[in-house]
């Protein structure tokens, strides 16, 4: 063994001792920043992230200083915002898909800063990705919708045709169909994450087409308000929207980011942060549900509760074969479940039985 190698090992161990020492005594709070796509008052997606931030702040107290910035459009402006945050923070969370390339670009320029990008797929040494298995939530509300619809038409307000949204539509449809073979799903694309006006228009259009249960993959409470007015049913999205639809909201899919945020920021504090890929669901507690509305029949409630328990034990998968694609070609064989990649993460087809046209 050469002397050089030995001395470099020695240096390394000295260095790591020093590092461990400094990270232990360092009293400086971790500076964490969050980029939001909508306003925190959307009571949906961004609201849920902000609740997570509050949870993490409460948990970590003086160990963390939080900065949040709302209404950052998914365009070249976001790169400037992310850069500004990277200059002043230890870890930056970018909470929408459209921030992916800007996040990665900035991360390359700021190798000492940690980045966490929600719902994307590009990992780097200092960029983690995290997302929730929202389609597990869709499975539960799909079962409820299939039981509760009288017109057999479920209305679905969708944002952009990206894999995450497609997964939700397919999962909800399959679950609804499993309890109600006659059910149909009608999809309206609003090409926005947050646009209360368009979301309300879409809700009305779907009701005009016969829908009596609404689902949404957009961020505002507009559809819930419409559902309440029209006396039909809907589901809270990303957070509990009970306040806007005391009668309409059957339950809601709640995104619970708090524990994840607290863990990741604590990891930066403790010097244990490393790049990771998280795709968590009901089992890990990242997807939760709002209380079931009392206006639901007990059997429906029980069926939904059973689905939640099964999901939380990992006993069922919303996509379990046999499932064909919309064009009739086979996707999953009897009993087969899809891998995350490529099937779930790149999903760009409807399953068989959906008669809406795939957006192209």
């Amino acid at each position: 063994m050469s002397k050089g190698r030995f001395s470099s090992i020695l240096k390394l161990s000295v260095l790591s001792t020093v590092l461990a020492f400094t990270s232990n005594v360092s009293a400086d709070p971790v500076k964490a920043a969050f980029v939001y796509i909508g306003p925190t008052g959307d009571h949906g997606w961004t609201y849920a992230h902000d609740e997570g931030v509050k949870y993490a702040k409460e948990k970590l107290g003086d160990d963390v200083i939080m900065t949040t910035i709302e209404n950052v459009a998914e365009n070249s402006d976001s790169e400037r915002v992310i850069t500004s945050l990277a200059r002043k923070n230890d870890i930056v969370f970018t909470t929408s898909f459209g921030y992916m390339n800007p996040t990665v670009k900035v991360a390359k320029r700021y190798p000492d800063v940690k980045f966490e990008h929600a719902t994307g797929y590009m990992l780097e040494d200092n960029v983690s990705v995290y997302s929730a298995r929202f389609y597990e939530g869709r499975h539960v509300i799909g079962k409820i919708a299939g039981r509760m619809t009288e017109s057999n038409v479920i209305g679905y307000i969708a944002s952009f045709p990206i894999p995450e949204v497609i997964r939700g539509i397919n999962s909800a449809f399959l679950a609804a169909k499993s309890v109600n073979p006659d059910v149909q799903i009608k999809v309206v694309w609003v090409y926005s994450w947050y646009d209360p006006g368009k979301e309300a228009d879409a809700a009305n259009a779907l009701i005009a087409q016969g829908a009596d249960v609404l689902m949404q993959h957009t961020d505002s409470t507009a559809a819930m308000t419409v559902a309440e007015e029209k006396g039909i049913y809907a589901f809270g999205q990303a957070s509990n929207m009970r306040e806007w639809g005391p009668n309409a909201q059957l339950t809601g899919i709640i995104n619970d980011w708090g524990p994840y945020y607290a863990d990741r920021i604590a990891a930066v504090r403790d010097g244990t942060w490393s790049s990771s890929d998280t795709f968590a669901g009901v089992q890990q507690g990242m997807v939760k549900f709002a209380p079931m509305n009392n206006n639901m029949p007990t059997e429906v409630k029980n069926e939904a509760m059973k689905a939640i328990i099964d999901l939380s034990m990992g006993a069922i998968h919303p996509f379990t074969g046999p499932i064909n694609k919309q064009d009739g070609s086979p996707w999953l064989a009897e009993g087969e479940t899809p891998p995350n990649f490529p099937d779930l993460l790149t999903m760009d087809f409807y399953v068989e039985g959906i008669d809406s046209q795939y957006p192209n």
Partner: protein
Amino acid sequence: MIKLIPRVENSKAMILLSPLLALTLTALSALIIFIFILDDIKVSSVFFTLFVLPLTDSYLFPELLVKAAPLMIIGLGLSIGFRAGIWNIGAEGQYVIGGIAGGAVGLYFYNVEGFWLLPLMALAAIIGGMLYASIAAFLKIRYQVNEILVTLMLTYVAVLFLSAMLQGPLRNPAGFNFPESRIFHDSAMLPIIWGGTRLHVGFIIAIIISFVAWFGIKKHMFGMQIKISGSAPRAAKFAGFNDNKTVLYSLLISGGLAGLAGFFEASGPAGQLTPGLPQFYGFTAIIVAFLARLHPIGILFSSLLIALSYVGGEEVQIEYNLPSSITQIFQGMLLFYFLACDILIKYKVVLNKTKN
């Protein structure tokens, strides 16, 4: 009763000073708002972050110029039509089509190196924007359809067309089926003129266009023609100016420039085509044009001012946790005071004591 009576003579000095006056009033109003919502100590630092930091910080200043470039280019094009009374409200749509056209050329020649690629992309973008605006010109000339409605409606069509392209032919084949194009290769990206920043050659071109437009309006016959068509349409007719030509050229120029701005955005700071390409530059440029009273050199400054409100607005949000609406409030107040000043320069306020 309050009445507005036209002044016989407008003060030249006031016409020049009113933008500064409007800016001062905006700053004062902002100050009052801040005093109400902030602790005393913070007011001055928020003010500094909002108005001064973007001009002095070595990272934010080039960003300010990046943000101003598309506003400047689109505002210049719009100002020409506005002078002639041609209201192209849908520059946003032409901007999107320009971005798609330029981007599509770049993606078609993906990984092909060559100095000719950028000019070709720019040409495609300009032609794309022109063709898109010419729909409104055609409908106006042939059927007297109002260009405000046509250009505005076509904006929504353009945005949907972008979505369709990103779901289909322009989608990144290795992009997990997300509606985004590939990231452009180096030959399809605008050269950076300030190392380590995002400031690209488009900013220089924007300034060149300002001076060309200034010269053109002052010296060229077409400049005279649009001016007279706008202010005295009948006189323009007697002078033998062709109305249809004014309509066509105004829309082609504003459409072409908006298209160019779309390409600069796609090949500059964005570096790819995404659904985030449209970002209201086409609409914000209307404010930019009017703040400058449609003067090309004025647009140079007003675009910087509006860009300042964006960049400074983001910084105060980050630094002091103020709501994002601070930028819109600032822009709204600026335009309000500016228009109010202009009214008061042109009209006298008279208190009419007699009651009806």
